[in-house]
């Protein structure tokens, strides 16, 4: 049984983005290790769309979403994978691979939200659509998102050795 790891090193931060966040906020606020100091706050309305691009294909086991318990935490989370140019229109019209209704305890205590791994066995990009929040207000805030899984085996170039020809 392979060990599952925090896939933070597999995330391609440059090509990941968060839509409808406030202007000067960056995706690194929630994807990088320095948790809790920086948030992502929603801007125009309460929806947030997080597009995570991976450097290589991965298998996703679970996810941890951390937020405050004051009602600004997200409630409905729809998960899509391997989409190209994913925006709010697609998020609302396409069928998600997974749909989760988050509860307060899960987000304040950072509990693992299990995915069905068979469905997420070959993920190049993960798209999280937070449709509304727990309090019903206009602002949704997320502290940290951690993706847990295992990167798929790719060619390990350092292990390539020349083999002597056998006569």
């Amino acid at each position, binding site marked *: 049984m392979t060990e599952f790891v925090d896939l933070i090193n597999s995330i391609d931060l440059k*090509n990941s983005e968060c*839509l409808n966040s406030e*202007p000067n906020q960056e995706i690194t606020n929630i994807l990088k290790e320095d948790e809790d100091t920086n948030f992502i706050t929603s*801007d*125009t*309305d309460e929806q947030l769309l997080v597009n995570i691009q991976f450097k290589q294909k991965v298998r996703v086991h679970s996810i941890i979403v951390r937020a405050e318990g004051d009602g600004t935490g997200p409630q409905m989370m729809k998960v899509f994978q391997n989409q190209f*140019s994913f925006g709010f229109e697609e998020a609302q019209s396409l069928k998600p691979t997974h749909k989760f209704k988050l509860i307060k305890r899960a987000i304040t205590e950072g509990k693992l939200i299990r995915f069905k791994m068979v469905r997420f066995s070959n993920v190049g990009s993960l798209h999280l659509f937070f449709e509304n929040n727990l309090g019903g207000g206009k602002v949704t805030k997320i502290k940290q998102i951690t993706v847990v899984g295992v990167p798929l085996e790719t060619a390990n170039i350092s292990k390539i050795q020349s083999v002597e020809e056998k006569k």
Partner: protein
Amino acid sequence: MVLEACVILIDNSSYSRNGDFAPNRFLSQIDSISFIAGSKIQQNRVNTVGILSMSGRRPDLVLAPTNDVGQVLIATNKIQIEGKIDLISSIEIAQLSLKHRSNKEHAQRIVMFVASPLEEKKEDLEKIGSQLRKASISIDVINFGETERNEEKLSALIDNANSGDNCHLLSVPTSTGIILADQIQGSGIFSSSSGGMGGGYESGFGGGGYAGGMVDPNVDPELAMVLQMSLEEERQRQSRLQQENNNNNNEKEGNEEKQEEKKMDLEETEESSQNSNKNENNETKEEPDMFSQLEGLTEEEQMELIMKMSLEEMGNEELEQLGIPNEEEETEKEKDPEVQNALQDEDLVDSILLSLPGVDPENEEITETINNIKKESNDEEKDKEKKNEND
């Protein structure tokens, strides 16, 4: 230098046949588009510009975003004037086109020309403004031709789409002789933070009256450099001449020249002449008097006082040689010292400028800017004086 993908929405409805913007609204848009595209691609060669026509059977993406200005110009020729604009669909199609841009690192922008009276509801425009904001697309709207009727709706659109001042509404009222492209250029919404090279060149020498008297280095870097060189040369020369002066030098460059030097000294470097007087002559006792006196005087009177003091240094012999003409000059100058100074200054500056290639000293602009420089340096020296007095 922002990396940007831009789609320009052109109003090719029948309303743009109107000739209130010469030659007609449609052609003035084409004109402006070539300026906008040129300026964006000049700012960054990787920037892309696309064109979408808003009216007709349906909005049509005439040109997908490209960084080739030539293609932009060719594409504008293919557009026909017909029908009425469909604003909401046009923005949505532009949004799609930007979403599928080749380089995801480009910021997304829409530039929209509106020259027909809008039939869309204000709420719909507000909705699409929020949609653009959610997708982090910034929008610039150029409202012309039907400005009053559309003003309210378009400002609602911009307000909803604006996040951190990235969206602008440019309303160009109809009046005779207005060229749309010039108005756009002048507004500066398409210039980069450095001032906009393309716009700067076309406004030409008019840019000479920049704040502070110096020529904006972006507008004309050569002239700015020339002026700076001549300034430095002049200052060096003056400090050299002061030292000669105060050392009671026997090198006689002639009456007028010496007077000129003094005038230059007085006007441009009051403080340094004070200092050199202090250091190199027997005026140390008079220092406190000098300073206390100077504080209370105006510039003219200060100059007169310094004049008298430097004349005293010169000694009797030299005074004889300078003699009567000196006094005459002095009285003239007392009557009108500033004018005299200005004139003589000009001669010297002209001579310096003549020695530099490619500069016409009689050019009004140059003399104007030089005068501004003089005023500026005068102010500087007054400040220096005050600082010195405080020391």
